[in-house]
């Protein structure tokens, strides 16, 4: 038994190392066992659908403790991890294990709700509900890029868009980007594709390169070509290259997507400018965004009002507008135990907190949290 435990630890160490080399994340799931450390708390198990709970329990009862090592599951990849798995493993541990796989926004609540931050080597969707939100969506995406650039200073950024979106929402303005996000004009590359297919091709080609710090793909509406397959291709390339690919969807529906994270961004009224004598009435201060989590690996909902600080290139959360959607946990950053009964698939009832976006806005919440 001791030998097998040592061997198992070795195997896990090796797997972790392989995963680190591959840039993916090993997710160790411990099957529930009476008395074993890390077993699921009672109320969590009671929340599991009976089918899953039985399946997990039965082999252990039938064959005894020798089967434990067989019931340890190693999960790789971010997209395949389902919500219940993350809830059971505990988000705090996950965040520690994979600190370098995520881009931390610097807002604790948002990072926690996203399960550690925005995945770096992945496709992330940022939605704007209307084309007139394009400024806010672009601004939020660029602030994320600005965070990426902290580590990858000087690497260029590619912005791919269809001719339609650049005409409808305006062309990115290099002077504004420099002032607000510290992105040098020489670092920027734009690609204007006449058709959607061309834009997807350019983005795919760019996503497989490591020479770009980040690639932004901007699409308007909900074209049929931008389906699960297309997003999966983009996601796979971004994963292989280890670079973020931000898909900006202006005025698009919440279609099925392979992206692990979907954020819905709109503009929020800016705070007044700060002066020595206090806030200047009637002035328009730093850019502010309202961010809704449409889809994430943890499936925790949330709405955040973020403010971008162009001097320090960092986000700040604005307290007075925020609606506490995730119930505050009594034990710091880990909200999971406090969120009530833990279910395999989040039911509608568990989202009864105030200010919750309606289901029509977030169809992604309806189904189980699988890839896409």
């Amino acid at each position, binding site marked *: 038994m001791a030998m097998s435990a040592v061997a198992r630890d070795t195997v896990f160490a090796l797997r972790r190392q392989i995963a680190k080399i591959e840039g993916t994340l090993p997710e160790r799931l411990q099957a529930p066992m009476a008395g074993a450390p890390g077993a699921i708390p009672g109320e969590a198990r009671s929340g599991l659908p009976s089918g899953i709970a039985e399946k997990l329990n039965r082999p252990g009862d039938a064959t005894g403790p020798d089967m434990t090592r067989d019931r340890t599951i190693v999960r790789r990849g971010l997209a395949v991890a389902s919500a219940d798995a993350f809830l059971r493993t505990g988000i705090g541990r996950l965040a520690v294990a994979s600190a370098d796989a995520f881009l931390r926004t610097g807002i604790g609540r948002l990072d926690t709700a996203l399960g550690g931050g925005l995945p770096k080597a992945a496709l992330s969707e940022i939605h704007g509900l209307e084309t007139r939100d394009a400024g806010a969506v672009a601004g939020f995406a660029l602030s994320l890029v600005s965070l990426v650039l902290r580590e990858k*200073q000087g690497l260029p950024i590619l912005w791919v868009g269809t001719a339609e979106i650049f005409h409808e929402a305006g062309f990115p303005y290099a002077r504004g980007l420099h002032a607000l996000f510290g992105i040098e004009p020489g*670092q920027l590359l734009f690609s204007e594709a006449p058709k959607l297919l061309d834009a997807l091709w350019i983005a795919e080609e760019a996503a497989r390169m490591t*020479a770009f710090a980040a690639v932004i793909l901007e699409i308007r509406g909900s074209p049929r070509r931008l389906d699960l397959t297309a997003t999966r291709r983009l996601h796979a390339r971004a994963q292989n290259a280890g670079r973020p690919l931000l898909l900006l969807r202006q005025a698009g529906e919440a279609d099925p997507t392979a992206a692990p994270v979907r954020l819905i961004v709109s503009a929020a009224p800016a705070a007044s400018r700060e002066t020595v004598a206090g806030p200047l009435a009637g002035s328009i201060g730093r850019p502010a965004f309202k961010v809704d989590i449409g889809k994430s690996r943890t499936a925790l909902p949330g709405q955040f009002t973020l403010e971008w600080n162009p001097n320090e290139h960092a986000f700040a959360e604005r307290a007075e507008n925020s609606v506490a959607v995730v119930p505050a946990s009594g034990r710091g950053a880990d909200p999971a135990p406090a969120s009530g009964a833990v279910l395999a698939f989040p039911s509608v009832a568990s989202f009864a907190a105030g200010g919750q976006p309606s289901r029509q806005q977030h169809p992604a919440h309806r189904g189980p949290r699988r890839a896409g």
Partner: protein
Amino acid sequence: MVSHRDNNTQRIAALDERAEALKLKRGMGIADARAMHPTIDVVEADAEADRRLLEGLADWCDRYTPLVAIDGEDGLFLDVTGCTHLFGGERAMQDEILTRFFQQGFDVRAGLASTPGAAWAAARFHGDRIVAGGEEEALLAPLPLSALRIAPQTRASLESVGLRTAGAVMAAPRAPLARRFGATLLLRLDQALGRLDEAVSPRLPVAPLSVERHLAEPVVLTDDIERLVSRLAIALKTDLERRGEGARTLALLLFRVDGAVNRIAVGTSRPMREPRLIQRLFHERLTALEQSIDAGFGFDLVRLSVLSVAAFDLAQGDLTGDTDDDDADIALFADRVRARLGEAAVLKPVVVESHLPERAVKTVPFAEAPQRRAPAAGRAALPRTTPPMTIYPPERPVRLFRSPEPIEVPATEIPEGPPMNFRWRRALYRVARAEGPERIAAEWWRQLPGEEEAPTRDYYRIEDSEGRRYWLYRQGLYSSAAQAAPPRWFMHGVFA
């Protein structure tokens, strides 16, 4: 029979053998010809189509020599110096050209000589003759004056003084000839005899390097063409290495069996000689052109030419072998996108010193943009492109409309103030807060003298009731004059 309009009369421009047998001649009026033979078939001449056909033939002749020039309306000059041995000698080459043209349905005459003038005369007055060096005089002497490529007026006046053959002109003293008939006559004569060099100006610039492959079996499939391109590129690489250069523009010429020629060019942002990369560029280009290339019965000659070259700097790799030259990657990426989607597919912003927002940033195609300096090895911070001019730089939007969009402003609180609400793209926006104005005047130093001064713009930062921020401007000022039109408002950008 082909007619053309000359001096308000329809005249015969060209005719075939059967018409000639009916004793019809060039220049004869169509009315006369019809009176003689009412059954003749007359077609209107189309000079444009003739020229296109001749250009097509010139393209096809490119397979024999890169130096092909169009001569007048019905001739082609091929400078075959140094090319004949590739086709088995002068005689074999001329025979092949004539046979090939005949198979394509053309009645062609050819002459080969060591001067363009002699070859011109041989082709027109002998047909299928090869003039050895030194025989030009013997060739030209018995020929009429039109063999000297001189203007008809000169020819007429020469004939009026009794000089009716080229030989007679050659025998006459040169000084009086030059005095009376001008220098052109003697120039043409000297050129034909090889005393003066005559340059044939080729239609297309001659590629510094080209490699080609003649195929016994014509290829049709794009994959096969791509494979050939990579083989040719391998052959090209050694030449480029020897010269210490890399290709900046490459052209792929596909000669179809029936005479059509496809010319596919790709440009590179930095000198390139790697066959794999060249093949990838052509892969994108061929994919993009797949619909427009008609392989027909296949291509029997594929040529890869380097149209322009640049010095190739060798970069030292490090010992681990995994130097990631990001700039080279990006240049290749941009080239591939460019090859598929055109020159303007990858754009780079360039900052221009200007107050006008739309002029302050120029987007240029990637290949024309100044190369970004690679960050230093220590990943030092990049130097700022523009020094901060003021302590509080004016706020600029993240997105700018390419052309400002007119908006309707029903009312402003004070005449020179921001709007209270506005209508943009048929939707009404209520202004919650506004900052401004920032007055930006037109650049008088760019305006032409006498031109009316462009109105100033007053820019406002606007936040609407839903928190979106816009950049509006009012063009011009309110005027007390009754007839003056009220100033117009425009939407110019969107803030984050």
